[in-house]
C-alpha cells in the first residue's frame, strides 16, 4: 500500500512536467495547426540555457529558469519569423517536414556545441528527501511540481482572461474578422509560437536538474509531449494538462509493477488504446482551444 502511494506520488510529480510539455505543443497545434516536431528541441534548449546561466554566468538558480524560458521563447519567435511565416498557407505536411528539419538541425547543433557527454545541473535544494508519513519525496521534485502547476495555470489564465489571449483565440478562429478588429495577425502567430516554445523551455529548465542533460534529451520529451497531446485530444488544453498527469502515473505504475526497461513503452500502449477506443482523446468534451 505504501509502495502504491509512493508510485502515485512520483507519477503525479512527473506528470505535471509532462502536462507542461503537452500544453505547449497542443497550443501550437490547436491555434496554429502546426505539428511542431521541434518541440523537444526547445525543451533541450531550455535545459542547456539554464545550465549555461548557472555554470558559465553563475546566476542564481531561481533566475536561471526565467532566463531559460526567455531563451526558448526568443528561439521560437525567430523560428516562426524566419521559417513558418514564409510558409503560411502551405499544407500542414510541408510545415511538418520543415519542423522535422529544424529538429535535426537544432539537435545536432547542440551536439556540436555542448558535446555528447551528459551534464548535470547543480541546485540549491538539499538532496535529503522529505518524509511525509509513508512516502518520501525530494524537495527539488516538489519545487518542479509547484512551478509547473503555476505555469500551467498562468498559461490558462493568459489564454482565457487577457486581451492577448482573446486576440490569439480570435485570430485562429477567423483571421479576417480578427484583423478587422485591429488584431495584428502576424504578431499573434509569432507570439503564439514563442509561447509554446517558452513553455517547452520551462519544462527543460525544470527537468534538467532532475535528470541529466544530453543533446538528444529532446527526443524523449517530444515523444512524451505527443503522447500527452493525443491522450488529451489534439488542441485540447485541459485535456493535455490532465493527460500529462495520467501518463506520469501510468508510467510510474508500469515501471514499478511491470518492468522498468519498458517505462517508455507505456505511452505508446496508451496512445494505441486511445486511438482504438476514443480517437478524439480521453477528455473529448472538455473545452477546446481554437
Amino acid at each position, binding site marked *: 500500500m505504501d509502495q502504491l502511494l509512493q508510485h502515485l506520488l512520483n507519477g503525479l510529480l512527473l506528470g505535471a512536467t509532462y502536462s507542461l510539455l503537452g500544453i505547449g505543443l497542443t497550443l501550437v*497545434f490547436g491555434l496554429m495547426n502546426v*505539428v511542431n516536431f521541434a518541440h523537444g528541441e526547445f525543451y533541450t534548449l531550455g535545459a542547456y540555457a539554464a545550465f549555461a546561466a548557472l555554470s558559465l554566468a553563475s546566476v542564481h538558480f531561481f533566475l536561471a529558469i526565467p532566463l531559460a524560458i526567455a531563451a526558448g521563447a526568443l528561439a521560437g519567435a525567430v523560428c516562426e519569423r524566419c*521559417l513558418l511565416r*514564409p*510558409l503560411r498557407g502551405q499544407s*500542414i*505536411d*510541408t510545415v*511538418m*517536414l*520543415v519542423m*522535422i*528539419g*529544424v*529538429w*535535426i*538541425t*537544432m*539537435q*545536432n*547543433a547542440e*551536439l*556540436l556545441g555542448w558535446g555528447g557527454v551528459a551534464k548535470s545541473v547543480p541546485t540549491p535544494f538539499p538532496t535529503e528527501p522529505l518524509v511525509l508519513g509513508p512516502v518520501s519525496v525530494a524537495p527539488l521534485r516538489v519545487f518542479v511540481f509547484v512551478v509547473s502547476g503555476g505555469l500551467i495555470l498562468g498559461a490558462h489564465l493568459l489564454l482565457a482572461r487577457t486581451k492577448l489571449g482573446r486576440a490569439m483565440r480570435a485570430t485562429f478562429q477567423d483571421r479576417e474578422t480578427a484583423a478587422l478588429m485591429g488584431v495584428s495577425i502576424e504578431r499573434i502567430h509569432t507570439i503564439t509560437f514563442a509561447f509554446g516554445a517558452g513553455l517547452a523551455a520551462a519544462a527543460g529548465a525544470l527537468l534538467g536538474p532532475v535528470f541529466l542533460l544530453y543533446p538528444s534529451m529532446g*527526443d524523449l520529451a517530444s*515523444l512524451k509531449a*505527443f*503522447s500527452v497531446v*493525443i491522450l488529451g485530444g*489534439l488542441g485540447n488544453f485541459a485535456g493535455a494538462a490532465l493527460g500529462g498527469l495520467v501518463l506520469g502515473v501510468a508510467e510510474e505504475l508500469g515501471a514499478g509493477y511491470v*518492468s522498468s*526497461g*519498458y517505462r*517508455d*513503452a507505456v*505511452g*505508446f500502449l496508451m*496512445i*494505441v488504446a486511445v*486511438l*482504438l477506443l476514443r*480517437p478524439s482523446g480521453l477528455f473529448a468534451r472538455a473545452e477546446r482551444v481554437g
Partner: protein
Amino acid sequence: MSRAALLLALATAATAPAWVWNPYHLHTLIMAGIFAVLALSLNLLLGYTGQLSLGHAAFFGIGAYAAGLLTVKLEWSPWIGLLAAVVLPGAAGYVIGRLALKLRGAYFVLLTISFAGCVSLVSVNWMDLTNGPLGLPGVPPLEIALPGLPPLSLRTKAAFYYVVLAAVALSYLVCLALIRSRVGRALVALRENETLAASVGIDGTHYLVLAAVVSAAMAGFGGGLYAHYTRFVSPEVFLFTYTVTMVIMVVAGGKGTLAGPIVGAVLFTVLPEALRAATSWQWQMLLYGVLLVGVLFFMPEGIVPAARRRWSAS
C-alpha cells in the same frame, strides 16, 4: 534526352563492379542500393498517399531481426530469412496502418514514431531473444544452391552488388505495377481529394492500409538484405537516423515520382561518403537538417521533377 540518360544510368549500374575496384566504393554503392529500396518504400506512403511514416526504421529493423534471428538461432536458410523479413514487417505495417490510418495525418506520424521507439525498446530489453545491445553476430551470407552444382556463395561484394541491384529493380517494378494499377489511381485520388474519391466509391482506409503493408514489407526487405550483407544485427538498426535519411532521400529526390527516391538514395549515400574526410558525422546530420529545410523552401517538389521541367522547357 531523358531516355539516353536513363540508358546511361542503367549501363553504369549494371557494369559497376567491373570498374569500381576499390571495395569501399563498392560498399557505398551497395548501401546506396539498400537505401534505394528503403526510399522507394517510404515514397509509396509519403509520395503517393501523403502519409508520413517516421517509424520506417522499425520496419527496416524488424526485417533485419527476422532475417538474423531465423538464420542464427534456428539455422534456417537465408532465403527463408529474407522471406520472413518481408512478411513480418508487412504484418506489422497492417496493424499500424489499421490503427492509425482511420485518423491519418499527424496521428499516423505519431503512432509510427512511438511504434519505432517501442520496437527498439524490445530489441534492447528482450535479452534472451535478441541478445540485447550486444546484437546478433554471424548472420550467414546469401547462397545459391542449384541441384547438381556446388553452392554459390554471394559473400563477395561484387556478387552482393548484383543481389542489391536486382532488389532495387524488383522494388521499382512492384511500385510501378502498384501505381499503374487501380490501386495507384485510387491512392492518388485519395491524396488529392478524399471526399471526391469517396463519392465515387473508393474506400480510403482500405487502400491506405494496403499501401502501408506494401511499404512496410519493402522496408523489411531492405532490412533483410542489410542483415545478410553486414552479417550482424544490433538495436542500431532502429536508429532514428535511418528514418531521417530515408525522408531526406525521398523529399530531396522528389516524392511522388519513382525515379526521385532512387536518385535521392544514390546522392545521399555517395555524397556523405565523399564528404566524410572533410566533415564529422555530427556536421553531416546538421547539414541534413538544413538541407531538408532548404529543399522544402527552394525546390519543394524535389530534384527529379525540377530537372524534368528544365529539360522539357529547353
